[in-house]
């Protein structure tokens, strides 16, 4: 008993807020760091189009194989010029959202004509993710950040280990494998809004057919010079009569 109370007091003084500390049988503290995610979001997609950026994600937050939460918003505006979407551990995403809210609030409090652009926010995010990785206590997310400022379009990714880059079209999770090939084939820099949305819906549909942890309820975020809008949830029409879905165990006798 005494060991546990002592260990708890020591944990407090160490300020171990992010990690779980447990007293083992020998009375020493074992700081546990993030080993695996619990409540997770699946893919996020992002593309540049003629007037700005489009991001798309479904609204599921799974608890292992259970589709626990079906109205979880995984896309979030950041300041006036950017939107962020995350896959991975959703509680970490919420913490990142809080940090970004604080950042944009402090930026506003200067009360001058300067605002943080998407590039600056991407850089800031990268520093956070990399710092946590160095402590072996990562924020378990793969994040897409898109924005438009002064006519310049920006679309970037930050991973949980701090790898960061920019591209014309990006995806996280299964989207990297199922959506990117389609985006590579179909993406053009001068797509209109309708063409961009149609392309994203095509990719989302593939993900719904083939990614077990996705649901047919999506949001699309649009960023242009005018600002950020996130659509209300919508669904896409599915067709399960496609030939590819007939006789699914054709190539794997005995499975279901």
């Amino acid at each position, binding site marked *: 008993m005494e060991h546990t109370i002592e260990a708890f007091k020591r944990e407090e003084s160490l300020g171990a807020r992010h990690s779980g500390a447990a007293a083992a049988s020998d009375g020493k503290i074992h700081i546990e760091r993030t080993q695996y995610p619990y409540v997770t979001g699946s893919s996020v997609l992002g593309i540049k189009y003629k007037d700005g950026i489009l991001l798309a994600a479904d609204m599921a937050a799974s608890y292992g194989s259970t589709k626990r939460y079906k109205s979880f918003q995984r896309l979030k505006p950041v300041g006036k010029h950017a939107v962020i979407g995350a896959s991975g551990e959703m509680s970490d995403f919420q913490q990142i959202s809080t940090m970004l809210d604080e950042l944009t609030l402090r930026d506003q409090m200067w009360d001058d004509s300067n605002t943080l652009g998407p590039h600056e926010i991407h850089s*800031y995010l990268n520093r956070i993710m990399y710092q946590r990785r160095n402590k072996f206590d990562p924020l378990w997310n793969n994040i897409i950040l898109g924005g438009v400022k002064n006519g310049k379009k920006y679309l970037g990714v930050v991973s949980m280990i701090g790898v960061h880059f920019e591209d014309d079209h990006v995806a996280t999770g299964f989207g990297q494998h199922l959506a990117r090939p389609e985006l590579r084939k179909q993406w053009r820099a001068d797509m209109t809004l309708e063409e961009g949305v149609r392309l994203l819906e095509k990719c989302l549909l593939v993900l719904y057919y083939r990614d077990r942890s996705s649901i047919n309820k999506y949001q699309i975020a649009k960023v242009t010079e005018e600002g950020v809008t996130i659509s209300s949830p919508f669904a896409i029409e599915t067709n399960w009569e496609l030939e590819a879905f007939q006789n699914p165990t054709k190539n794997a006798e005995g499975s279901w």
Partner: protein
Amino acid sequence: MFRNQYDTDVTTWSPAGRLHQVEYAMEGVKQGSAAVGLKCKTHVVLASVNKASSELSSYQKKLFKIDENIGVAMAGIIADGRVLCKFMRSECIYHQFVFEAPLPVSRLVVQVADKAQVCTQRSWKRPYGVGLLVAGLDEAGPHLYYNCPSGNYYEYYAFAIGSRSQAAKTYLERRFETFKDCSRDELIRHALLAVKESLQDEELKSTNCGIAVVGADEDFHILDGETLQSFIDTLEDNKAEAKEAAPEDPASTSGGGEAGPSAGAAEEPPAEATPMDM
């Protein structure tokens, strides 16, 4: 400014609602040798009058680069200015490291002003005795700011600080509306001519003045001696034009503009450096 019983501490108000120590600090800036700043649509130029403490010594450096897009000219206690420079440089580099983007000038200037204000409200501190002309470029365009020992900051089209700066200010006041359409080289010429007004019985040479430029396509840098001398030489060619435009008698203008005691100090022979410049 007269000595009175309310000027011992910076934290003592006078019955008239003034903080005399802060005002004395601003006087200190007026004792330093002049610095001038002006901007056009694309560039900002800083100019300084450099003094040497003796024939054996080098001329005091008063122009400093803070970041690729920001630089300062100072007048007053240069040692105080150097410390503020170090602070500004570290703020800029921190912002660059976290955001991979240059710190906007307007933000840097507010940070310096807040730092200066602290020194006006602590009994164990004294105000910084240096005025900073901050020249910089950010998304909103070119900027020229003046940071005062009082903790105030002001934005200017053109400004001059330090001793005999009134003459330079008069030169600038007559022409500032034309500055925004000036080219970079024209702006440098104007800066040199303005600084010339602040010299008394001294020839403008590349050794006793300094020029620094920053522009959209030009990182902040201080002009080297040769380039500076060639600008000064072109001034000579247009000397007649400059003489017409300049005020009739710089000495009387500056003498009339300042209060009694400090005008006496300003009239000292220019070859001797005032103590604050060291």
